[in-house]
């Protein structure tokens, strides 16, 4: 069997991933790009596959991007962030308390319990913990960390950890919890956190989310064509709109790497990956 022009890796964090990529595969074929995808159960396997030559490009979480970059640098090869969703830019996470909580400042968190998301969630664990550390508060030392681990290895793509932490917050099991700003709104709208029941204690600096990361030695022409087609994809084209809707994107944008330094620091502080991309956290199972 001949290999298609471009093979992409994606993580199967939900059943819709198949719908999305089967749909895009057919659309790319219609545009003359031979494209196929391989599903991985976790981002660690996917990034390793990028270096084993299994895939030419990967639809990576921000944490997977960090790891791919570290592995590339340590091996003297290069990977590139070539495209992302409009919705991947400038996210913020919030640290939330109950509306009637005595906590008014980050410092009030001392001696309290913070609910975070999955161990590998940039938005609900790593970045909020970094934000607190920058304010002089270290998890485990100044406050207790309670993890709401849902689907480790999927880098927090599954919203379940954030939701479980929010429910625990309302139940009084934790004093504060972390989530993406958009999920705070979504939990208010869907009733998980009734409007007015919580208060935002702190908001992180903006950061970027997923990107398409090329593998070392990826075929440049096919990658260029892939990016060109992505950027040309239009929300008003009914052939792709349902897929874009499922993927949570209105418009594909060129990749940029300016939104990841915060996570790089967070990863070092948490000793999650080594400088070469090795997995350091012994509690991380996927």
């Amino acid at each position, binding site marked *: 069997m001949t290999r298609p022009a471009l093979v992409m890796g994606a993580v199967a964090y939900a059943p819709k991933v198949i719908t999305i990529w089967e749909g895009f595969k057919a659309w790319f074929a219609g545009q003359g790009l031979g494209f196929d995808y391989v599903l991985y159960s976790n981002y660690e396997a996917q990034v390793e596959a990028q270096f084993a030559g299994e895939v030419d490009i990967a639809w990576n979480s921000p944490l997977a991007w960090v790891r791919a970059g570290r592995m590339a640098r340590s091996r003297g090869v290069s990977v590139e962030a070539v495209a992302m969703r409009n*919705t991947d830019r400038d996210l913020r996470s919030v640290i939330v308390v109950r509306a009637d909580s005595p906590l008014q400042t980050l410092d009030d968190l001392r001696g309290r319990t913070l609910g975070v998301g999955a161990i590998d969630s940039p938005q609900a664990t790593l970045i909020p913990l970094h934000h607190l550390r920058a304010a002089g508060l270290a998890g485990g030392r100044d406050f207790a960390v309670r993890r709401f681990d849902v689907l480790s290895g999927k880098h927090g793509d599954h919203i379940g950890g954030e939701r479980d932490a929010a429910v625990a917050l309302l139940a009084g099991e934790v004093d504060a919890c972390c989530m993406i700003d*958009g999920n705070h709104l979504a939990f208010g709208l869907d009733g998980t956190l009734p409007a007015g029941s919580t208060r935002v204690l702190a908001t992180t600096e903006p950061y970027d989310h997923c990107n398409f990361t090329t593998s070392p030695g990826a075929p440049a022409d096919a990658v260029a064509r892939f990016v060109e087609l992505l950027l040309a994809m239009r929300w*008003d084209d009914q052939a792709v709109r349902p897929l874009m809707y499922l993927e949570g994107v209105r418009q594909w944008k060129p990749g940029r790497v300016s939104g990841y330094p915060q996570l790089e620091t967070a990863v070092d502080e948490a000793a999650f990956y080594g400088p070469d991309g090795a997995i350091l956290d012994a509690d991380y199972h996927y």
Partner: protein
Amino acid sequence: MPTITIDALGLDEGGLLLVRRALAELPAGAALTVRGAGPQWATHLGAWAREQGHEMAMRAGPDGAEAVLTRGPWAEGRWLGAMATGRSTLGPGEEPAARADPAWGLAARGATVEAGSPPIAFGLSARDEVWAVTAGELYAQAAAGQWDPQTAIDWDAPFDLPPAIEAAVAQVMTYLIENENAALVVPARHLGQVHPHYREVQQALALQCADEARHIEVFTRRLGLRGHAPMLSTAGGQASLHSLLQAPDFSTATFLLSVLGEGSFITLLTFLQAHAPDPVTRRICRLAARDEARHVAFGMAHLEHRLAAQAGYRTQLQAAVEQRHEALAPTAGLNEEVFDALVLLAAGELTPEAVARGHAAVQQMKADMAAGRRARLLRLGFEHEEARRLSDLHTRNFM
């Protein structure tokens, strides 16, 4: 630049509605200033704008920070290539679309349907295969004419019949119920296939089914009113009704069931009303006959439309009557027990003189049925001779 103030209203408390409505009035690329006073409004607005693809920037306003939202083009994009689906209310002489697009799906007629909506297969999606000019009117009459079996009939009205007469009533009711079952199942099978674009037809058929459900109820209740069990159902009777289920399309089924069958059935119900031995039977036959008149009217209106649109369809109707006649030839026709029961009801007692009267009355009823069928066939434009021939080929089972 337009400005809205959401005050302390949270975006998760309805504030989004105000923002969405204000943005909807702006063209893509135009900006809206949003001022809020709630604790998280700016965080939430930023998250929402990012998800929706609107640009947002914060700046200092007269009363603290305010957001400037620039409307993205996405909302328009969604409605590009959207489908128009006709007019909700039809003016005088106006007809719905000749073909209803499967992609219009279940949308209200007249709605703007987003491109990419899933096509829904409706077997009856061509106007001339279902339409009746008076469908809307007949639906309205039916809606106004619905009666409650519990209150429309005095079930406690006193009467006491000799056992032979009560048994005759039970046999006739047994027969009526199986006919009503057919009258319910035939339109019901077509109803689910009618494209909702032909709303008036859908509605008329739905109430026709509701009518038949009531008929089944009242005949069943009268049957058991004095403790009688249902009686005999014959192979010939069921074969006749079965052939209605096998009609090749909606128009033919409607022709056989409504124009020929229910038309004859009205004559039967009128006969029963005249010869009913008790007030309950009289009343339910009267109420049912009133409903049946609408069913016949719909059938006539549909066939008039179909034949006007497609004159050659007449041949198919002729063939359907002939085929049904051939198919039913080896069967016994009207149940003897039903025939005897009708004679007995018209006679009122088992004396030779009375039975002679009853027999003559049933013969007259059959002649009236045939005359009615001929009149309706003439109205549909069949030639005199042909109308007589087709009327005579109609099932001996009446329906």
